[in-house]
């Protein structure tokens, strides 16, 4: 096993990996930008090295600086986390060239699965169904028109180099195709530096279901079941669960086998996720893409299977076999994760950076919080606005939902706007509770949601609390002679009381 590992990431995932290091007795090295010197992941690590200024292109994406940092502290391996350089094959090659171990798949496998068009070719080779669409990129509008007519509308235009929903467009009729084609090309060029797009038949009421796979260097490839990730905004997941509310063992077996087949086809090693679209009406599934790294939502799989995916990543990277076989994998109970973003759900999920002035994270039975922030943490405009993940486990989906509601109500964050109020509503939504999920969930939810009025008494109590806070900290006090002191009477009373307490002890 490794003696020292550098974590080329920040925030909650860096903290998660550092926890794995501690359990295995590995020394952890954090990297940080100048803006992150006081951040939680630095405080959690054994060692920390500054790799550049706040802008991620100069720090967390700076390959030379990160490898120099690893060499300077004699780290043996680099864990990339997710995002940043996690799916950058050049980074994996540079790590290997520097004589270090990259904790992830081979650069060749990353190359193969990184482009959506070559990944689709791999799926076809493995005998896994793909959404009817073009394997090659489409270069002219005429070609797009012919292909769209062949598949029938609606169709989806996608960037070949894509991810995160950029360059992705739904086209419902031939009238829209011309403008959408030009726009998708422009968006793809702006986001990924290449304008290549391809076209797919759009699956109706699609569920986004992915299979976690794990492979070691001894030829073992296993799957850890599915995660349902249908609740998305801007094509990014916000709530994930394991298993899917469909909970169909036969479907799980078939999707799991397909995912393992893809892993074997590309000689995959480490943790990987195969994403599928599943038609809610026909239960047909289609390969979508592969993520060649640990996923944000890996905790739900850990809660239900009991395996520690980061620990297995370290084992596989160190050349050891997986600690379990396919027959050892059992799915017990149900887990749900909410991604807590510094975003305003009432304003189209617009980012809401700032300083966290108060933080109380939930705990108790079946609750897991993977957090990258603490009291007084600064949520910066430079990085992803996800501050933490709340995951809950219950014996049944209903029990998990009850825990989720309770944990969300315990969760308090002040100073920034978060997606917590949105999750509190979703966790009580009829369609969510019924497990009727597809990628159109949030759009429909926003249509039907009615703001639930709090009991009038609570409105009044909130006003009384605000008034007390005002009197405590802001109300001016006039003393004789008309001079004004800035401290409120309550503040002074509090100080006196505080002093009394000190004297007593």
């Amino acid at each position: 096993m490794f003696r020292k590992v550098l974590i080329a990431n920040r925030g909650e995932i860096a903290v998660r990996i550092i926890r794995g290091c501690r359990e295995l007795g590995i020394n952890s090295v954090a990297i940080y930008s100048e803006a992150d010197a006081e951040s939680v992941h630095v405080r959690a690590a054994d060692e920390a090295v500054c790799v550049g200024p706040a802008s991620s292109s100069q720090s967390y994406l700076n390959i030379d600086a990160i490898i120099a940092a690893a060499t300077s502290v004699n780290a043996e391996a680099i864990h990339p986390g997710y995002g940043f350089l996690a799916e950058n094959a050049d980074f994996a090659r540079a790590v290997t060239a520097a004589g270090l171990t990259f904790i992830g798949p081979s650069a060749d496998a990353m190359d193969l699965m990184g482009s959506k068009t070559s990944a689709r070719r791999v799926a076809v080779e493995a005998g896994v169904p793909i959404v009817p669409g073009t394997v090659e990129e489409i270069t002219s509008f005429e070609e797009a028109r012919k292909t769209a007519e062949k598949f029938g509308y609606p169709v989806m235009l996608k960037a070949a180099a894509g991810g995160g929903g950029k360059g992705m467009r739904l086209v419902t009729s031939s009238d829209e195709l011309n403008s959408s084609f030009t726009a998708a090309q422009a968006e793809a060029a702006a986001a990924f530096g290449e304008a290549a797009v391809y076209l797919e038949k759009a699956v109706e009421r699609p569920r986004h279901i992915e299979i976690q796979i794990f492979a070691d260097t001894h030829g073992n490839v296993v799957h850890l079941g599915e995660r349902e990730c249908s609740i998305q905004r801007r094509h990014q997941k916000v709530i994930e669960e394991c298993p899917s509310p469909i909970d169909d063992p036969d479907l799980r077996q078939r999707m799991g086998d397909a995912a393992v087949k893809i892993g074997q086809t590309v000689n995959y090693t480490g943790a990987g996720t195969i994403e599928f679209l599943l038609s809610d009406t026909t239960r047909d599934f289609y390969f979508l893409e592969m993520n060649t790294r640990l996923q944000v939502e890996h905790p739900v799989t850990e809660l239900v299977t009991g395996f520690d995916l980061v620990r297995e990543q370290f084992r596989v990277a160190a050349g050891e076999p997986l600690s379990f076989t396919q027959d050892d994998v059992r799915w017990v109970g149900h887990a749900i994760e909410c991604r807590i973003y510094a975003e305003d759900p009432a304003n189209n999920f617009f980012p809401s950076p700032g300083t966290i002035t108060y933080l109380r994270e939930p705990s108790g039975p079946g609750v897991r919080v993977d957090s990258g922030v603490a009291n007084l943490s600064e949520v910066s405009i430079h990085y992803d606005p996800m501050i933490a993940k709340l995951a809950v486990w219950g014996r049944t989906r209903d029990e998990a939902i009850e825990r989720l509601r309770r944990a969300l109500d315990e969760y308090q964050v002040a100073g920034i706007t978060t997606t917590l109020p949105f999750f509190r509503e979703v966790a009580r939504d009829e369609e969510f509770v019924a497990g009727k999920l597809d990628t159109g969930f949030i759009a429909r939810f926003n249509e039907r949601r009615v703001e639930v009025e709090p009991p009038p008494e609570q409105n009044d109590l909130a006003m009384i609390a605000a008034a007390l806070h005002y009197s405590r900290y802001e109300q001016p006090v006039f003393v004789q002679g008309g001079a004004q002191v800035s401290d409120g009477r309550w503040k002074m009373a509090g100080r006196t009381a505080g002093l009394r307490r000190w004297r007593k002890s």
Partner: protein
Amino acid sequence: MKLKAIVDDQEHELNVKIEGDRVNAEIDGRVYELELREPEPGSYLFLRDAAVHECRVSKAHETFHVNLHGRNYAVTIVDPKRLRSGQGAHGHHHGLAEITAPMPGKVVRVLIETGDKVEKGAGLVVVEAMKMQNEMKSPRVGVVVSINVKPGDTVNAGDVLAVVE
């Protein structure tokens, strides 16, 4: 202590008396007798007929944010005493709403002109930040009294974009 509290554009008359651990409050004629504890700064723990209500209060941009039973309330407090003595609550005159930029960004469009009548929720200025366009909306019905930006301007968090009266 007599104050006005504004929640969701609704104004309420507050009369709060504090005697030791007891709070007697009257809001628009509704009477509350509460036992008060303060376990830490910003935390107000009310006991009302044995029912526990913990309020977490923090202040940002002249608004008190109260979290109670998993719900957030934005409360504006107006102190008539302060207004009389010329100590306006940091320019927060009742009826005047400043629309501020939530974060650094660039003004893409200005959708209104000075003197325009606007509804609550009407789009005023579109600001682009973090690759997203965000329409800043009017928090109330009123008239646009000033616009401080034009398309192409770079703005910082907290900059006043427009004022609605």
